[in-house]
């Protein structure tokens, strides 16, 4: 069995520390900010720009960890530290995991 999409402990702590309403808004912000980062990764890959690629992956990893999105953070971290990949397969997998994560986050944020 794979790890949970969202680590409930991290998410609960975040809500306890920052307030549930604020976290719901923060999830909305993440929903707006992540797609441009995925697009940045694709464009950096096409341009062969390793540093731009790493930075975008780093931002995604950082935000995923904040919400306790462990699996998404793990995928982003592999891309951050792995250098410019040969193909877009890793980004595709990251984008799919982001969709799954977002559904789970929205359900947790506004039950």
């Amino acid at each position: 069995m794979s790890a949970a999409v969202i680590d409930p402990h991290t998410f609960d702590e975040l809500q306890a520390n920052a307030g549930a309403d604020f976290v719901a808004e923060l999830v909305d912000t993440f929903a707006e900010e992540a797609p441009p980062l995925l697009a940045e990764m694709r464009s950096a890959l096409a341009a062969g720009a390793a540093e731009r690629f790493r930075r975008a992956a780093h931002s995604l990893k950082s935000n995923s960890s904040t919400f306790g999105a462990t699996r998404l953070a793990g995928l982003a971290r592999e891309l951050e530290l792995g250098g410019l990949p040969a193909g877009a397969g890793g980004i595709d997998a990251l984008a799919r995991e982001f969709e799954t994560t977002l559904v789970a986050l929205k359900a947790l944020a506004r039950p």
Partner: protein
Amino acid sequence: MSAEVSVGPFGRFAILTAERRLLVDGEPVTLGSRAFDLLAALVARRDRVVPKEELIEVVWPGLVVEDNNLQVQISALRKVLGAQAIATVPGRGYQFTVAAAAEAKVRPALRAGHGTSQRGARLLVADDNKVNRLLLCRSLELMGHTVASADNGRAALERLRSEPFDLLLLDLEMPEMDGFGLLEQRTADPAALHDVPVIVTSSLEGVAPIARCIELGADDYLHKPVNPVLLKARVDSSLERKHLRDRQRELLARLAPGAVGEAAPGAATGGRTEATILVARLRELDALAASQPAQETLELLGSWTTLMLDAVESQGGAVLQIAGDAISVVFGAAMPSASGVAPGAAVRAAREMGELMAQFNAERIATGKAPVGLAVGIASGEVVAGYTGTPQRTAYVCVGAAVERAARLEALAGGSAGAVLIDGATRAAVAGRVSTDTVSPAVLPGSSTAVAVHALKPAT
């Protein structure tokens, strides 16, 4: 001279708001700066019961403070004004009661405290990632700070140049100008920026970025996602250090006008002077830290430091160093006072520390916690004192045999009964005014020759 603003008189005493002094029968009475703020707040609101939270917000603006601190300050005020002067209304708060206060029992008049009270902190957050930025701002606002933000290093730099901030929280990877770039600018333009401490927040992995930030003068480094308990501890600690630096700078400016410009690396200003050094340490911390949650240890340290600073400020001492469970203070060197008063002020501060600790322990025991001990060493002599440092880090320093001796006396006190130990020079200066037991001759830790050591007897 500004016009004197006073409140009262209430029976035998009056409060001089502008001078931050309490007068009893026309004589100034010693009061720590927090205690003064608390009294002023209670008097201004004497028509009603004031909730604890409101008092804490007035006295420790922008800081998250335990109830314990407030109770200790209330106890201190009651000692000066009489127990009936401040009524406890269970579950609601405290109220200043004028008629009872008129009957105030009064301590002997001493020089009044002059400490500056801490402002509500203004923080700047620099982070290009919107999720991180919003969350960090939110966390800091919940701690009671005023927070502004910038989404890259250049924008942050512009804000730092155009308005005052108490602390910068800085991300490393940002467009336009990254965190390293900003730290380098800060070194290049110290006049505008070196007074603002920086805490770096980043999720970059490895120790290389941390090392580089520290080299570039950052105060501290926090990994993202930022742990809220650590964030509060580090922010409080940086703000306190800045507060002390500002205050020491003020004191030195009074001592040697013009000397406190932009200190060049390695440069020291100041000179030789007679001074008394006091070193105080919280005892049994290691045992407590091993047996209680980290948060409780942090709170204990915070409360202890607050109490010690109150005692120091009320006697006009200047803090040299706060290192976790120890605090070093100088009396005399940076004070514009007449010579010869420093040993007495240090001894009074030690007594006040003991009294505050007794009240603090009473509160701890009442809540089922173990009491904590205090060890104090005091030594007098010639020291070289002044303001030194690099553009990133500045400190008021004090060097001399008395500094070493005070630390060794504290170690000796901590190893035995937890008493206040003073050296021969201090004892000679306060002879006839305080009573002491001679422990000497004793070989102090780290020394091979026996010197005179005296234990301060409790005040009667």
